[in-house]
């Protein structure tokens, strides 16, 4: 693979033309900031020509220019400056920070605009505002930073777990819930292995009018990641290294060995056999203090004609769980060149990534949680179980240390992303653009459980899995930009072809002679020769084809208009519904440009925005609309032999189409008091129709008892506020603060269509609990916990429940004897960030709060109960505190639905930057993450929950019983630019 990478890189380099430019009379100069420090990377162009350069590390530049030509200086985050060249020998330019970021570049998909031109709801987070610390995934960089975007890491500290992302509430029941992530125009790019240091900014297209340009994939929002480009000038290097460690946030919710013994003595003195005499801290046996290391090295430089940025990223995350880890190596190279008198510009990018994962078994952590603390870890006399202490008669009660030692589960992933983006300036206003990318994922992995793995039941058990996934994107298009007489027009258009291919291969075998091979000699197991091994391969392809266009217009930067359309088809949908249209329109009015406000000194910026857009969600399995035949999982005894059975693969639905979302958004952007206070407020109303769900249908006439169909309608509405304050702007001290506020209200408007035979009035969700926990009802929000109302414990140890319908009997199963006792979704969310800079020190902290939600404390349902104790397991201490006399069955009721509002100190970071000669710098920093949480929730962590909505396994607001522990992270790092 490495060799392939080298060859590919060489091929790219060989494509590069080197252009020789004739020298002209020129001027030199230096650009500094307000404090007089040199600014590098400032774009300097001669207005009306293609002549341009960038400042070097010391802020200096040289540019060919003639008298009376105008020089334009621009730099992200600064006010642009224009200067007419009068023949000075040298120039000294002092640039000012653009407060309120109105000149900031905002990515809007297939192009950029400045912030003041934006008419949709788009939030940009720049690198300097990213969350600090050790992130397993770049999505952690913007957790809590974007109002309306909820990012949760429910896997706890698992280095191989991703984040769950939800934008403006839940907008689908069964289709995919992930936003479309686009890295520099590359759709569905893999981001987990990207170096966070290479990310320039992350733009979130929130409302329908902004996202509709991405059509059938935009309902869950679009996240545009822009990576850093090359620095022009002498080669610059940057090193970013850090080391971090984690500590479990221990809250001792289970009985210690001594407490366990005391509980036996107090409550069950006859059951002394439950005390096995030892004192084992099971969680300590399976966890460790991990050392995580991150190294990033970047070289960047070149001329305006050809420049590059090369990066090598290495990450090694040990995990809190002893045998889990993640090791990532990502080299990447970006090359940009211009040719044909600056008419042609080509960007190349190649990213390769190798990720070695050791996957943790969540079951180990679950077993360690509820294991009897008086049991020993080892029992040397127990030879059959390799010396692990084992309780053989307790099914499903496994020694976590044995699980940890006797299993291997690993995966080797390789990601390759190649991308070419060429633009050709046909006329000064018209550019033709050709964009192509290839994005692939290959994985080989396997697992092996030795014969000593608890309850494995076979002489070793091996699996091997290989996957290949690749997508191709081809997008020719154009961009037309013209300004005349105060009118500004930007039109883009194009065609998009996207193809995704998936191949899989898996095998399982067991009954090996010895455990030495692990899964590396899978053919040697006897399950293969005795006909019990398994093997499977699969392949599928899906396509998306689209034509898109967008026009952005403004008059005097005062009246703004944006309109777009995407005509898109997906192969996944029924023959009658392959294609659809996704229009959007939005307008803006910059009141501060009007005379009646222009004179109001304290108003610097005031813009009203209104938008409407239609988006879709096509994230479902392939082939669901077709009438297909599959090989059945069961065989048939025919004429003395077992032969395959062939069956229809699903109930076909030729009317299958995408879920369609129409959204209205109204917002205001403002900047007051010299832009010391600025921000925006957005209101939205989004309605998703044709919701996909599996509806029960009669068998016969159907072959299967459910059909996947478009039926329901759901609504989300809400408010988002972002408020920023530049409190102090002095030379030595700056203080800025940001507050985010998010409110969302969800309602399921309809769920059935009796006319078409889809007659579902309600849905009782049973997340593998003892009974159903949530009721999904038309006209109600999702996530309503409906529970029997617990009133207390009766004399015989059972629960007393409220007779809600007053009929004299209590039927816990019936909704008539239950009440809504909470909702899994928050009422509102807050984020508060403060950043300070005092001379060479910088300090920032970020609080994140989520309020008003209720969670089902699943652990209490099962382990705040004597039943597991009596069968020899550990239980929650709260058993002794809350209802010690309760001896009833394990069941769900109102006791366990808890208010779970919380505030977390997400991170605190302190840094010290030394300015070195020649614009070099060296920064040291320390960051603490998750330092504390304030909550009344009694479970492990109010974020140890599913954010998702899933009928079969678990649903929003329900804890996982086995999870990676939640940890505090401490990071020390350096950043050296030279």
């Amino acid at each position: 693979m490495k060799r392939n990478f080298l060859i590919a890189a060489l091929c790219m380099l060989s494509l590069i033309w080197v252009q020789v430019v004739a020298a002209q009379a020129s001027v030199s100069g230096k650009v500094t900031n307000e404090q007089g420090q040199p600014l590098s990377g400032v774009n300097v162009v001669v207005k009306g020509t293609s002549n341009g350069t960038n400042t070097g590390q010391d802020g200096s530049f040289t540019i060919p220019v003639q008298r009376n030509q105008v020089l334009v200086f621009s730099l992200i985050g600064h006010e642009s400056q224009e200067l007419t060249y009068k023949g000075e020998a040298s120039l000294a330019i002092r640039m000012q920070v653009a407060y309120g970021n109105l000149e900031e570049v905002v990515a809007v998909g297939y192009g950029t605009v400045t912030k003041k031109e934006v008419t949709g709801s788009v939030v940009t987070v720049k690198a300097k505002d990213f969350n600090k610390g050790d992130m397993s995934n770049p999505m952690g960089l913007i957790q809590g930073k974007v109002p309306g975007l909820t990012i949760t890491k429910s896997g706890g500290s698992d280095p191989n777990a991703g984040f769950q992302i939800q934008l403006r509430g839940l907008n689908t029941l069964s289709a995919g819930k992930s936003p479309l992530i686009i890295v520099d125009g590359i759709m569905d790019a893999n981001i987990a292995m990207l170096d966070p240091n290479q990310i320039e900014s992350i733009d979130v297209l929130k409302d329908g009018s902004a996202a509709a340009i991405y059509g059938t994939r935009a309902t869950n929002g679009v996240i545009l990641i822009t990576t850093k480009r090359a620095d022009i000038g002498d080669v610059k290097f940057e090193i970013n290294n850090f080391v971090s460690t984690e500590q479990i946030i221990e809250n001792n919710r289970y009985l210690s060995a001594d407490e366990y013994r005391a509980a036996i003595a107090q409550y069950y003195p006859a059951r002394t056999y439950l005390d096995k005499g030892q004192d084992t801290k099971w969680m300590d046996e399976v966890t460790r203090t991990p050392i995580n290391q991150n190294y990033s090295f970047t070289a960047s430089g070149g001329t305006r004609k050809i420049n590059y940025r090369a990066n090598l990223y290495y990450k090694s995350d040990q995990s809190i769980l002893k045998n889990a880890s993640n090791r990532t190596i990502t080299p990447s190279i970006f090359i940009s060149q211009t040719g044909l008198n600056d008419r042609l510009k080509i960007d190349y990018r190649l990213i390769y990534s190798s990720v070695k994962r050791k996957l943790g078994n969540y079951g180990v952590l679950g077993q360690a949680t509820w294991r009897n603390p008086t049991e020993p870890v080892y029992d040397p006399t127990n030879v059959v179980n390799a010396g692990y202490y084992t309780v053989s008669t307790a099914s499903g009660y496994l020694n976590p240390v044995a699980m940890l030692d006797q299993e291997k589960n690993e995966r080797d992933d390789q990601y390759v992303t190649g991308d070419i983006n060429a633009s050709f300036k046909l006329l000064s206003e018209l550019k033709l653009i050709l964009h192509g990318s290839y994005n692939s994922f290959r994985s080989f992995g396997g697992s092996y459980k030795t014969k000593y793995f608890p309850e494995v039941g076979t002489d070793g058990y091996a699996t091997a899995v290989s996957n290949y996934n690749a997508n191709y994107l081809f997008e020719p298009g154009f961009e037309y930009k013209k300004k005349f007489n105060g009118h500004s027009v930007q039109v883009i258009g194009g065609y998009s072809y996207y193809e995704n291919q998936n191949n899989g291969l898996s095998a399982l075998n067991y009954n090996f002679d010895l455990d030495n091979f692990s899964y590396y000699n899978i053919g040697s197991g006897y399950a293969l020769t005795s006909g019990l091994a398994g093997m499977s391969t699969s392949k599928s392809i899906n396509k998306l084809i689209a034509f898109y266009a967008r026009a952005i217009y403004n008059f005097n930067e005062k009246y703004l208009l944006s309109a777009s359309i995407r005509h898109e088809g997906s192969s996944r949908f029924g023959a009658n519904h392959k294609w659809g249209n996704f229009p959007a329109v939005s307008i803006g009015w910059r009141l501060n440009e009007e005379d009646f406000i222009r004179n109001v000194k304290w108003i610097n910026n005031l813009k009203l925005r209104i938008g409407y857009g239609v988006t879709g969600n096509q994230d479902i399995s392939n082939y669901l609309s077709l009438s297909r035949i599959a090989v059945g999982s069961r065989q048939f005894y025919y004429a003395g032999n077992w032969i395959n059975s062939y069956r229809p693969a699903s109930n076909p639905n030729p009317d299958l189409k995408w879920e369609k979302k129409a959204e209205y958004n109204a917002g205001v952007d403002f900047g007051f008091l010299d832009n010391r206070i600025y921000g925006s407020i957005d209101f939205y109303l989004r309605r998703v129709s044709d919701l996909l769900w599996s509806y029960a249908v009669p068998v016969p006439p159907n072959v299967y008892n459910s059909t996947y169909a478009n039926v329901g309608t759901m609504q989300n509405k809400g408010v988002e506020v972002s408020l920023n304050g530049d409190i102090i702007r002095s030379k030595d001290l700056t203080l800025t603060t940001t507050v985010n506020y998010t409110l969302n209200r969800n309602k399921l408007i309809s769920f059935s269509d009796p006319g078409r035979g889809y007659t579902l009035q309600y849905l009782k969700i049973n997340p593998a609990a003892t009974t159903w926990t949530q009721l999904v009802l038309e006209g109600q929000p999702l996530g309503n916990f409906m529970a029997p109302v617990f009133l207390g414990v009766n004399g015989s140890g059972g629960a007393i429940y409220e007779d809600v319908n007053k009929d004299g009997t209590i039927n816990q199963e019936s909704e008539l004897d239950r009440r809504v006792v909470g909702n899994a979704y928050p009422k509102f969310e807050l984020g508060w960030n403060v950043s300070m800079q005092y001379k060479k020190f910088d300090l920032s902290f970020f609080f994140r709060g989520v309020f008003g939600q209720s969670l089902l404390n699943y652990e209490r349902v099962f382990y705040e109960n004597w039943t597991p104790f009596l069968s020899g397991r550990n239980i929650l201490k709260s058993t002794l505190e809350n209802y010690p006399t309760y001896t009833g069955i394990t069941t769900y009721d109102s006791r366990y639905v808890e208010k779970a509002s919380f505030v977390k100190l997400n991170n605190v970071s302190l840094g010290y930057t030394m300015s070195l000669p020649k614009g070099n710098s060296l920064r040291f920093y320390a960051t603490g993450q998750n330092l504390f949480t304030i909550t009344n929730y009694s479970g492990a962590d109010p974020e140890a929950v599913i954010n998702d909505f899933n009928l079969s396994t678990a649903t929003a607001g329900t804890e996982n019983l086995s999870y990676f522990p939640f940890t505090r992270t401490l990071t020390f790092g350096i950043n050296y630019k030279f």
Partner: protein
Amino acid sequence: MLLIMKQIKYFIVVIACVFSTASCTKLDEELFSTLDASEFYKTERECILAMGNAYAQMQYRGTSLWGLMGTETLATDEACCPVRTQGTYLNNNGLWVRLNQHNFVATMDPVGSSWEFCFNTISACNQVIYQIGESPAEFAKKPNMIAELKALRAFAYYTAIDLYGNIPVTLDFTDVSLPQQKTRAEVFAIVEKELLDNLSLLEEKPSADYYGRCTRPMAYAVLAKMYLNAEKWIGTPRYADAITMCNNIIQLNSYSLEPDYFKNFQVDNISSKENIWVLPYDRKVGWGLQMHQYTLHPAQASVYNISSPIWNGMVASPDFYALYNSSDKRINSWMVGQQYDASGQPLKTSSGAPLVFTPSISGFQTAGELDGVRCKKWQFPTGLQTNQTMDNDWAFIRYADILLMKAEAIMRSNGGTPTQEAVDEVNKVRERAFGNTSNDYTTATLTLPELLNERGRELAWEGHRRQDLIRFGKWQDAWFGKPVTAATKELYPIPSTALLANSNLKQNTGY
């Protein structure tokens, strides 16, 4: 500039080439790991492979506690899963207690899964019957194959009439309207006609090729079951027809009682001369019988080298076990007393107590770890691992049952008293059980209640008890763990999923 114009030309040519390719706006899906349905059913072999799906629907649900073993066996006086105060036991949040006490609700897994046993089979039959009929392939056995599937469908409807009474009927795959619910009598007539109409096309006698498939004797047996229950189900006695159907099977001379009762249930029971209608199982391919998990105690895992979890669950109810005479060989269907490991050493529980199973159960909800005798009627295969089930083929209908049915039909058509012919048929079964004639019935000793007891002993846990108790009027009676229950419990509720999916369905009375 000229150069640039040239470049533009190339650019346009490249773009034009790209767009002119046909795939530009084509969104047809290409299949790889599945087949386009319109390209299947083109050969005899493909029709056979499709037929397999109809038969495969019966696997697992046909013998699972969560399927027919729950609704047809556990809910009767033969068996129970008591709540044990110590050690592991099969609980499932009280499901088995509710099932045993006839607290049936429409959302119960066994109720839903038994429905699926019937209607998934019916739907698969409808689909395959239609597809084979439409298939361009010409082959001699085509009409026979269709008849065979119709017999299978009739068996599924027969099971559904028995469990749910008033059920929807669809026989035509192309009819996509919501099926209408029909009365028990209407469904009875349809199923009877389907079976009678297709008898001549069914394989006449058992053969190796037709093992596990629908044959003419299988159809006779299902008809005999229907006629025997007709008085109870639809109010019309059909005992003469039941006798005719039993005689049809007897006169074939293809079946006989195996001298060894247990040969019918052993791991390799394919050679049984007695099993008429069989659901073949194999741990490798046919997912099926989990008796080892239901009934054994975890300490017995080593005896059979079983490494899958064992649940210490299902046992014989004490009163049912008491029906056996100690010299009845069939009492060996049960494990009682001290249990031993493979080398003959006594087994112990995890707390060190001797593993001794007692027929008595100290309480339905307060049972001890070792209360209740366990079922070893189906020989346990050795070496069952996790996710493997027993290899023993499951007999829906055996020849012994035919003899007992014939006797019962004679008695019922004779005012409830036996003729000598009836006594002779029962004694054939009886003599095999005791190995001699000293326990034979006479016309004086063979009463209907005694015949029910004999059916219980002979057919224990084979899935006939519920139908028998209802036919003999005993279903509402109290028995171990169960109070007297209402007559409406003679039908199961129609599962809530089926009700939701079909607005034409009316729930059975009492639910």
